[in-house]
């Protein structure tokens, strides 16, 4: 028979191990559920089916595309190959301008329409989403 102390220690190690496994499982599970993918208009154009989940779209705000109404704003995000129309009602960050980089978070209605729930503020006036930068350099 094992002594009481050994049993206790065994129990202790078992508890620690189970907790660890549960923790890792829990973190990975909710990571899977809560991750937001980043896509460019071209990637959306190429994708075979429309994602129901929340995504982020990055690109440039097309020139002369911003139009304001009292409760919403609409504009076009472009990566100079493909475009997508965005409708948004909410707070607008300072650096939101035509012909500047933008990242919008929200849901796709279809391949050409996107309802944004958030427009992300970038702190730097020279910020450009990496995909857009790559697209610009290709031109």
């Amino acid at each position, binding site marked *: 028979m094992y002594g009481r102390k050994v049993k206790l220690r065994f129990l202790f190690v078992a508890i620690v191990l189970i*907790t660890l496994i549960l923790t890792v499982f829990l973190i990975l599970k909710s*990571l899977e559920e809560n991750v*937001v993918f980043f*896509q460019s208009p071209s990637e959306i154009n190429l994708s075979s089916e429309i994602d129901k989940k929340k995504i982020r779209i990055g690109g440039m705000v097309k020139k002369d595309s911003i139009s304001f109404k*009292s409760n919403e704003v609409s504009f076009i995000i472009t990566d100079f190959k493909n475009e997508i129309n965005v409708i948004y009602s909410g*707070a607008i960050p*300072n*650096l939101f301008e035509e012909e500047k980089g933008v990242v919008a978070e929200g849901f796709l209605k279809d391949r050409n329409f996107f309802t944004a729930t958030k427009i992300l503020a970038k702190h*730097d006036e020279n910020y450009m989403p990496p995909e857009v930068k790559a697209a610009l350099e290709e031109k």
Partner: protein
Amino acid sequence: MLYSVIGHYSLILGLCIGLLLVYYSVKNFKNSEQLNNKILSFTFLQFFLVMISFICLIISFILSDFSNETVFNNSHTTKPLFYKIAGTWGNHEGSLLLWLLVLTLFICIFLIKSKSQPIKYKILTLVFQQIIIIGFFVFLIATSNPFNYLYPIPEEGLGLNPILQDPALAIHPPILYLGYVGSSIIFSSALAATSLNLVSKKWASHIKKWVLVSWIFLTLGILLGSIWAYYELGWGGFWFWDPVENVSLMPWLALTTLLHCVLVLEKKQVLTSWVIILSISTFTLSMCGTFLVRSGILNSVHTFANDPERGLFILIFLFSLIFISLFIFFFFHKPNSNNSSNFFWLSKETSIVINNWFMMYFLSVVLIGTVYPIFLDVLSSQKISVGPPFYHKLIIPFLIPFLLAMSVGPKLKWIKSNLENKIYLISLLIISILLSFLIVKNFSQNILINTILISSALYLFLITLRDFFVKKHKNVSQNISHFGFSLLILSILLNNLFSNEIITNLKVGEVFENSKTKITFESVSQKEEKNYKSVIAKFSIEDKKGNSENFLPELRIYNQPNIVTSEADIKTTMLSDKFIVINIVQNQEFFNVRYQVKPFMIWIWLSVLLISFGGTLSLFKKEYEK
């Protein structure tokens, strides 16, 4: 020009002294007595040289000496003097120089303050600290020299990013650095103590002060950053789970855990390995933070330049430090043999260990959430982001047992205790559940989870509050910090539950109205300042009782660099903040208006102040007792 030369050469001299110090310390380690006085004077000299270099950079900024590349990139003649000085550390090169300055300052203070410690321990700590210092010297001089020369000399500088031109942000980096760098002393000292097998109660009570000091500064630094984000970024929140915020939270979590463990080690010779691991990881996490924000991997206001070379250097440096420390830990550390012999389930140390587990869990959640997107990008070039829902879902449920353990834990005694005569523990629990149900019941959604959350925070609140009036209770500083923590959680919860927000687009003269609030956009005026133009909007906001207040949110259009920033208008009272911020989009007559009512906002700041005040008190109390 002249100052750049002086600054540059004193940096190189400082590096030489660092190398000399390491060389002589290692060479004369056997007969170390004669080193005792010399090391102090040399360390002081090194600090003095870095100080000169730093002052030279400040002078270059004040004089707007654009022959200096750093000044050219980050300053402008029309900038107010205060921000010229603050701009010194508002950029990559200058902030690293500040980091170095604090590193050398801390090792000086460490040597002065630990006169009574064994000489070998002091020398070894110095050597480890000098290795870090030399690393930073090389990094600074090789990849980000603040004294680079520009020719031809430009007429005008490029200016400092306007959102950094703010009093809170001028002092945020120095305070945060004091916290980060304080953890380097803990790191070096833990390694030294491990190699000499000195990890004991005595060492714990000696290093505790350093843990406290860096913990206080780190707490205050995070607070300042958070306050700044609240009123300057115009999002109206205080924490966004942004990667750059997370990298400052991670060392804080590790440091808080360490603080509690050191207390256990001071009383009982247990948890030694754990304390060493925590000391190492706290500093490693601080370095990781520097690496992530400086290398341009995380895009944010802290990313001054995207330079892969710099990132690579910090990464290599970081890995060699981790390697050295793991090597020392595995080869020199001798764990105590009589470890678990008198460890009882119901005791203070058990409750601290339990809280440690929770802290480690929170830490790993934040770490994974921050690092996972980076790894995924590197491995599969998929771009993802991990937002607040992830953190909320994983952290909030575990806050409940965490808070309960925090309420009951300090009531237990060291080694072994029982919970007799503690009727008030149960009665307070019932009171807090009832109270929180009363608060929450008006809201239809999530009654259960909110009631449980608020009651556990309220429970801690009531218990710590009671302890202030019970004479028998000795540990006031701990009680203040825990009280502050309960207040923090309570204000955050109530703030989340009762916040109101209106976002709308208005033209001048238009009115927005809903059942509770009426917002009238009255007028717009303009004002010229030295380095910006401001557009001031006037709103009058009427609540449902008919009280009306005027708000003057502002837009600032800076001339150099050409950036628009919003200045929110915030009316703060003890019960709630009213927050309004406007935005304008080019060639549109609409203003984007965001109005928020945020209850208990000021209590979030005050409670964090209370938490760090508790730490400060404990620091000075120990000084008295000596």
